[in-house]
């Protein structure tokens, strides 16, 4: 027999489960003390169907989500909207075209946060970028690219060869 709090939190000898809607598990601590939060906002995806090189014209990269827990990622706009205040990890990795150069970046609320760059004479160049951002509810985040040359320079956008992800860490 367990201990019930208003019918939403249940403490038993096999662990603790929290759910206010009675359907979805919000947070659990199992019998070994392992904590999980299945409703944590999360997305991971890739560029798909965007051509051999893709830069979105300098706008938000339209990453196609493979997973979109919480529905915070919008495939059509390339924006993530934070549902709650917290610390969000963003990661991006892809191969960038050569010969060419450019500045892959992470943006928040329309402004640049961090960036890196490649300038490669030939062949593909691997790019990665990540950070953890403190956000308020309603903040928006996106991946993009600026100052690329030539105009066709960009990431491989057919499918695979890269990964983009965002998750609420805490």
């Amino acid at each position, binding site marked *: 027999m367990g201990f019930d709090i208003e019918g*939403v*939190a249940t403490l038993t000898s096999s662990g603790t489960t929290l759910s*206010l809607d009675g359907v979805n598990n919000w947070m659990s601590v199992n019998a070994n003390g392992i904590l999980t939060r299945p409703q944590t906002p999360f997305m991971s995806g890739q560029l798909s169907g965007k051509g051999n090189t893709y830069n979105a014209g300098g706008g938000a990269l339209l990453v196609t989500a493979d997973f979109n827990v919480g529905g915070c990622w919008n495939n059509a706009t390339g924006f993530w909207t934070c549902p709650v205040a*917290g*610390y969000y990890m963003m990661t991006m990795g892809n191969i960038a075209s050569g010969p060419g150069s450019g500045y892959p970046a992470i943006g928040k609320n329309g402004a640049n946060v*961090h960036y890196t760059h490649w300038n490669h004479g030939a062949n593909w160049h691997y790019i990665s970028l990540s950070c*953890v951002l403190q956000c308020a509810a309603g903040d928006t985040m996106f991946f993009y690219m600026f100052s690329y040359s030539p105009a066709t320079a960009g990431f491989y956008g057919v499918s695979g060869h890269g990964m983009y992800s965002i998750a609420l*860490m*805490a």
Partner: protein
Amino acid sequence: MGIDIGGNTIVRIPASGVSLNTLAFNSIGQGSASPAPGYTGWKAGTTYYAAPTGWETTATHWQSGLNVANGIFTCPVAGYYAMGYNSIHNGGQGYPTGYNTYGYSAFAKNGALDYYVHWNWPIGGWNTGGTAALFSCAAGDTLTLLVNRSPLSTGPDSISQNMGMYPNTHHAVWCKLVG
């Protein structure tokens, strides 16, 4: 009506979500906690730098536990900490005969190198790179990013050969308690 422990309401009506001290959930179960030990930051500057004793993360988006003068983060509690960085590195030039052509970057726990990577692209080329790792730490342990700190006892002399990492928001260094 909720349940109160020591003055903190830990369960509220569903529309308001749940608050467990600093851990709060909204009405659909998306939870976050604060404060959060860690940081995301960068070093201010205009050219590439070495940092064999600690990359001076002098500017931050947010931080708790970071010494911005020397880039050393001190873990406030025991736990697992994720750490990462991304940047461009100068490939160096003018190596004297017999000297190493590699530049190194590394994470150090309590001053000792735990993980390191290197770049080796000659004659002033910029190398995109970075790495990430998880650390098991005790309270009081320190985590640091080092640049041009060689894991070799003989040393590659990479500082004098103009190897280094580029500053400002052209790079990001981050660390976060994750569990």
